[in-house]
């Protein structure tokens, strides 16, 4: 048992830190610190800087523009990016679609898409959820009917993050209405400029537009945009979700918000007294510090130890449950620290430098809903324990 970084890992971390210190644009960093989510242009700008260093797709093979980092280095890189704070590599491109193409894609698909995904020349979004298929994803009803060398797609997706700024969407569609429900599903890549697609943003409670409805009507998708076999979509989706475990705990993001809370407490006076001098608040901060450390060690233990993984096969659910709970607590705490002032609503494109802590807090409520709600995660954990 050993919690230390190896000399090579420590050197890698120092290298990442130095790179971020030198290259992360100050305006992006400052916006994130204030509580903003990264805008598309922030993520694109930063990811291209990462690409120069070869870190845009940390775990992909070198042959396709990846850095081929091992699990520990991958954790270190993500952690340092979140702590900075810097945007993380675009999750739909890098963590979701990339690995699916590497596993199930044709050589032509890999050669065409992977470099464009890494450099964010194409921005993908994820078309999974539908009005009638949320937690019960396999209930999806969007159909793709084969017509010679095309699929004709009809249906509707919802909660599609970033669809309004995306170029493409990877989607689960039903190609066989007769088959048992998981088996009739296929994985398609859809160019959002194709006629028949309309995207309607959904304003969320934080005042922002991240989520969308995507309507598909007679959308013709070339068959070469099918990933894997027809009917293999569910398998692709499961693979994609299993791949998502690496960043699921968001330890670095918790650390960064905790550090920001400390800084805010150290410079905010209320009724003449520094918040940082309040014993109750200090206690709350150290409890969070200890709990975030516990999350960090748990994350390392599960991601680096196969024995730990086999002791709790649903470890990704454990990490997501704990990680989202702590993030939500931290965002809630920051809103309290911000006091009445942060209740002022500034709008998404606000450049005034005012903190967006209340917007970020409101958005954080989505953490326990997307990617499998906390209730679904608890079901998964309980199933591994009780059957």
């Amino acid at each position, binding site marked *: *048992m*050993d*919690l*230390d*970084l*190896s000399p090579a*890992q*420590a050197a890698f971390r120092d290298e990442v830190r130095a790179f971020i210190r030198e290259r992360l644009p100050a305006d992006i960093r400052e916006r994130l610190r204030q509580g903003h989510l990264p805008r598309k242009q922030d993520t694109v700008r930063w990811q291209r800087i990462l690409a120069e260093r070869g870190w845009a797709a940390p775990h992909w093979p070198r042959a396709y523009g990846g850095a081929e980092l091992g699990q*520990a280095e991958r954790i*270190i890189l993500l*952690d340092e990016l979140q702590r900075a704070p810097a945007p993380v590599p675009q999750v739909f491109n890098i963590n979701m679609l990339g690995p699916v193409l590497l596993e199930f894609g044709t050589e032509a698909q890999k050669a065409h898409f992977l470099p464009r995904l890494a450099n964010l020349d194409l921005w993908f979004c994820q078309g999974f959820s539908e009005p009638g298929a949320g937690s019960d994803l396999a209930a999806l009803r969007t159909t793709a009917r084969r017509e010679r060398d095309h699929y004709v797609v009809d249906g509707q997706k919802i909660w599609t993050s970033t669809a309004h700024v995306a170029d493409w969407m990877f989607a689960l569609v039903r190609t066989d209405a007769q088959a048992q429900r998981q088996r009739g599903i296929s994985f398609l890549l859809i160019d959002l400029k194709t006629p028949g697609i309309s995207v309607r943003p959904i304003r969320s409670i934080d005042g922002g537009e991240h989520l969308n409805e995507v309507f598909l009507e007679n959308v013709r998708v070339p068959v070469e945009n099918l990933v894997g076999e027809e009917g293999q979509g569910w398998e692709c989706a499961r693979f994609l979700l299993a791949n998502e475990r690496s960043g699921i705990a968001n330890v670095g993001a918790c*650390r960064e918000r*905790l*550090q920001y809370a*400390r800084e805010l407490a150290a410079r905010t006076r209320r009724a003449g007294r520094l918040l940082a001098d309040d014993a109750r608040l*200090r*206690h709350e*901060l*150290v*409890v969070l*510090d*200890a*709990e*975030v*450390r*516990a*999350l*960090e*060690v*748990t994350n*390392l*233990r*599960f991601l*680096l*130890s196969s*024995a*730990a993984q086999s002791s*709790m096969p649903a*470890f990704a*659910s*454990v990490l997501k*449950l*704990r990680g989202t709970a702590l993030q939500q607590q931290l965002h809630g705490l920051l809103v309290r620290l911000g006091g009445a002032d942060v209740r002022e609503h500034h709008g998404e494109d606000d450049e005034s430098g005012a903190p967006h802590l209340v917007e970020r807090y409101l958005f954080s409520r989505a953490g326990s809903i997307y990617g499998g709600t906390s*209730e679904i*995660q*608890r*079901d998964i*954990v*309980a199933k591994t*324990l*009780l059957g």
Partner: protein
Amino acid sequence: MQFELDEQQRALQHSLARLLADRHDHETRRRIAASATGWSEPHWRQLVELGLAALIVPETHGGLGGTAVDLMVVMQEIGRSGLASPLLGSCVVPAAALCAGADEATQRAWLPALALGEAQPAWAHDEPGGDGGALWVSTRAASDGDRWLLDGRKSAVHHGASADRLVVSARVAGADGEPDGRALFLAAPDAPGLAARNVRLIDGTPARELTLRRVPAQPLVLESGPAARAIDAALAFGIAGTCAEMLGAMEAAMRLTLEYLSTRKQFGRTIGQNQALRHVLADMQVSLDVTRSMAIAAAVQAGRRDDAGARADLHRAKLVVGRHARSLTEAAIQLHGGIGMTEEYAVGHSLQRVLVLETCFGDGDLHAAALDACVSRTDSPSGDGSSV
């Protein structure tokens, strides 16, 4: 970074688990708790035969030279089994103190006896009105010719009645909570001037409160620096040991709860089919996994001296494990319903044990305050050493 037990540790875990499964169960525990002494000499001898008294004593002094990770393996099994044992307080903690602070002659005089289980001292550091931390020592030691005399009070001296010696922290200089001026002494349990009140803790652990009036004692570690190191090491191993034992107690509660949910039927089906209960169970699993991580962190960091990051992790571990141990064992009782409230059934014992362990070597509030001091000093929330 490495999270697997090595082969020897797995072997140790296996043999202790088998021994305890053969020789100790909840009924045995109840019988032992109801006995006059509150602990079992035969069970203790078996631990000694397995070499556990020698576990962390260096090989040069007849020990096995084990680490706090080895200790974690042992205390986790003891926690799982619910065995009342003087191992941690009467053996590991004093040995850790001597290894870290005593001079060579003192080590030679005491460590081999500890390793053989021949010496069985009790650790007398906590005081009524103290906080269980390293610094609070108000018991005074004054030299009187060629001997030392101790005056003060000590509380929560686990297994104090059966101990053949007392390791007492006392102050030769300085004010009550100051770092400088602490020292360690050895006193006989029947020394003149020593008044003892035997108590039973809520989990059945036999303990003593001591009042010392001019109690003659022999110095173990007199100098301030070495004494501080000795007390820090004792508490570090104590924290690692109690965290591992709480983990074991939680595992026991979890196992019972799983069995119960799978067998108890109400409304014509097993209660484990009810989502409300399943979700509580899932949260218990999260607590268990978080605790396991911090028990490991405590064990890995306990052996490190003069390392601020390691000290912060020990505070974090005691704080986090105590919180999750309480919530898990409370939930375990809740999921059992009425049977969980009975003394006869084992699950409630886990909470009783946790209630005692969470205050040993400093409770959550103490460690939160200590952690606050650590992170304020470094101005970094996690310590930015080479440890992640």
